[in-house]
């Protein structure tokens, strides 16, 4: 046992010091628009190649306009690789959470600034208890699990994972919520005390991702419950998840 303590002491501190560090060079995040002008509907390569129909290329007044739904994007980087003009590039930011579904739809011409109703003194400012309900492929769950490890250590930000909805302030839902989970998810939400917050974690939870429009009605959490915040990504990086929860903590 003493040897084990000795070993652990020698390992030093693993916890990461920089909050929401950008992704390392070469790591694929969500796509973003650059200032390069798109080739327009005559090209449309990104739209055809996108496996989740997240991209829509249109032209208004002869000017090309591309809209990109980050809530449907699975971060496969196919658009980044196919775009001949370099209009779409890889985004290495990990602060990607947003308060509304509309904020996730970005356009190449009108750059929207994310609006957030956060205040310095939110009700869950100091600590928040989170219940995780998984309804998907387990990638997002593993990343929420990773938030708890020594590297990201989300407990230092006052975020605790709890084992019952009765103790929870926030419900983290992962996965597209297929039909067999509809009633279980609703009863979990109803068991929570108010005020309560729902966060859709990951592309499936936001829009159904690759599973949408199937016979299992797996089209995302907001078809079942009112959603207060969205964390896009497939799966979102642990920093994105921590940042998304921190955002709702600041809410009045």
């Amino acid at each position, binding site marked *: 046992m003493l040897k084990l303590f000795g070993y652990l002491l020698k390992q030093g501190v693993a916890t990461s010091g920089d909050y929401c560090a950008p992704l390392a060079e070469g790591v694929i995040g969500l796509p973003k628009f650059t200032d390069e002008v798109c080739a327009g509907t005559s090209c449309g390569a990104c739209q055809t190649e996108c496996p989740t129909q997240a991209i829509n290329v249109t032209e208004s007044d002869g000017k090309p306009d591309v809209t990109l739904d980050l809530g449907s994007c699975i971060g496969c980087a196919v658009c980044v690789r196919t775009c001949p003009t370099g209009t779409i590039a890889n985004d290495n930011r990990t602060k990607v959470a947003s308060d509304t579904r509309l904020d996730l739809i970005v356009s190449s011409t009108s750059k929207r600034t994310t609006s957030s109703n956060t205040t310095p003194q939110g009700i869950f400012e100091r600590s928040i208890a989170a219940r995780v309900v998984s309804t998907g492929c387990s990638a997002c769950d593993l990343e929420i699990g990773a938030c708890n490890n020594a590297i990201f250590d989300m407990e230092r930000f006052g975020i605790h994972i709890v084992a019952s909805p009765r103790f929870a302030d926030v419900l983290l839902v992962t996965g597209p919520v297929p039909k067999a989970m509809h009633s279980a998810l609703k009863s979990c939400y109803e068991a929570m005390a108010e005020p309560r917050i729902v966060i859709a974690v990951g592309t499936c939870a936001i829009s159904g991702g690759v599973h949408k429009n199937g016979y299992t009605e797996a089209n995302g959490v907001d078809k079942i419950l009112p959603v207060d915040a969205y964390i896009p990504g*497939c799966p979102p990086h642990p920093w994105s998840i921590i940042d998304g929860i921190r955002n709702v903590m600041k809410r009045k």
Partner: protein
Amino acid sequence: MNPKHEIVPISDREKKLNDWLKKPGGRLGHITSIDGKQLITLVLDTETGSSFCWETPIEHSTYPSLTHTVPQSHWYERTVWDMFNLTPTGHPRLKPNLLHESYAPDLVPLAHVEVNSLTAERRQYKPMEVTGEGIYEIPVGPIHAGIIEPGHFRFSCMGEVIFNLEIRLGYVHRGVERQMCSVPWRHQRFIAEAAASDSAAANAYANAIAIESLCEEATTARAEYLRSISLEVERLSMHISDLGGLAGDIGFLAISATMSRLRGSALRIGELLTGSRFQRGFICPGGVVSDPASNLMQIQKMTKQLQIELKPVLQFFFNNQVANDRMEGIGRVSPRLAIDFGLVGVAGRASNIDYDVRRHFARGVYRQDEIAIAIETAGDVMALARVRAREIETSLYLIVELIDRLPEGTVRVPLPEKLKSNQIGLGIVEAHRGELLHLIFTDNDGGVKRYAIKDPSVNNWTGLAISARNNLVTDFPLCNKSFGLSYSGHDL
């Protein structure tokens, strides 16, 4: 590798399958259907690395169940009943597997035949009841206390001892197999990866092999190596995670915390290789999407470092007396039952089944003696943990070694737009949980008419139910973690 197609009349099916399973190297790969007019029985010969696809025409949507002589078919027959409305007559415990009460009774997702009016009774699920004085039930789930996928466990107990565990799945059934047929084959890999993201690389790899066999094209040697490296990295990170989870359930938190930190290093290796922590979007039919040439040195360095760091942690874990006491003799699955229920992967090897797709369906990447044969006979939690630990060593060795031997060249070959018509394509891969199969049937125009996935968890869920029997309720988490099964991979 295309399986050989053979028509097997319904009268011969039972005898033929029983004979096949008795011969050395004979394995049942999958039982499914294409559109509800036939039964497909995929059998494998692990000695020669070949596969056969038996097609049995079915009339009137019923066929005799094989569960009494081939126990492992019980699970497949339930799924086929759900998805194709083919009724196995004489099945001892026929009940829905994937479709729950909330689905319309006449929904038969994969059958293209007229279905007669079906009643809601068909969807009713009755768990097996154990009766007697002092017997009580513990229901758990579908939403679990931890951060894991949903599933319902029902324990029938007497005091602290589990008599029977019934596992009900299907909560994360998302309709993956039907979705696979509705998209162009170039986009299939993204859905395949999302079938079970902890085996994303394995699923993409199996999809790529199956599609390539349907194009009658082979990828480059360099791409084949890179895919194998990717698969080993995935195995490494998941085995570390599973052993850490096991330590956590024993209450050995120093080990579980260290393991979850070291899993971060394994994920970083995957990130260097593929640009993604879960190695998504990397493997594609025809090869891989990018060549990580400039990162290979760093991957080797990190792998060697991880090897050094893991060694003492594993020693602390396996030398700890309390950990040994908690794991030894717990959750035993006998070799006989393991064979009867066709257990695969780590669970199979812990019960003396010498089967590893990397050796038996070799693709020319690994050398003959390279995959250490990690076999245990005890079949208990300890045996599973030991097999995992040894496979971690093998994976660490293989990552370094395969990079050393990596051939030069390109990493992607162009594939034709259209697949070969009326063919069967099979992708078989050793995922970190075991044998993963992707089976594709094409129609007259080269479109995909049926895409079947058999996750290793399909075989092993029954193994978990067996392992829990006659153990204490408090030991169940250990049985569960030692198997480390996928809900989403099973439910699809």
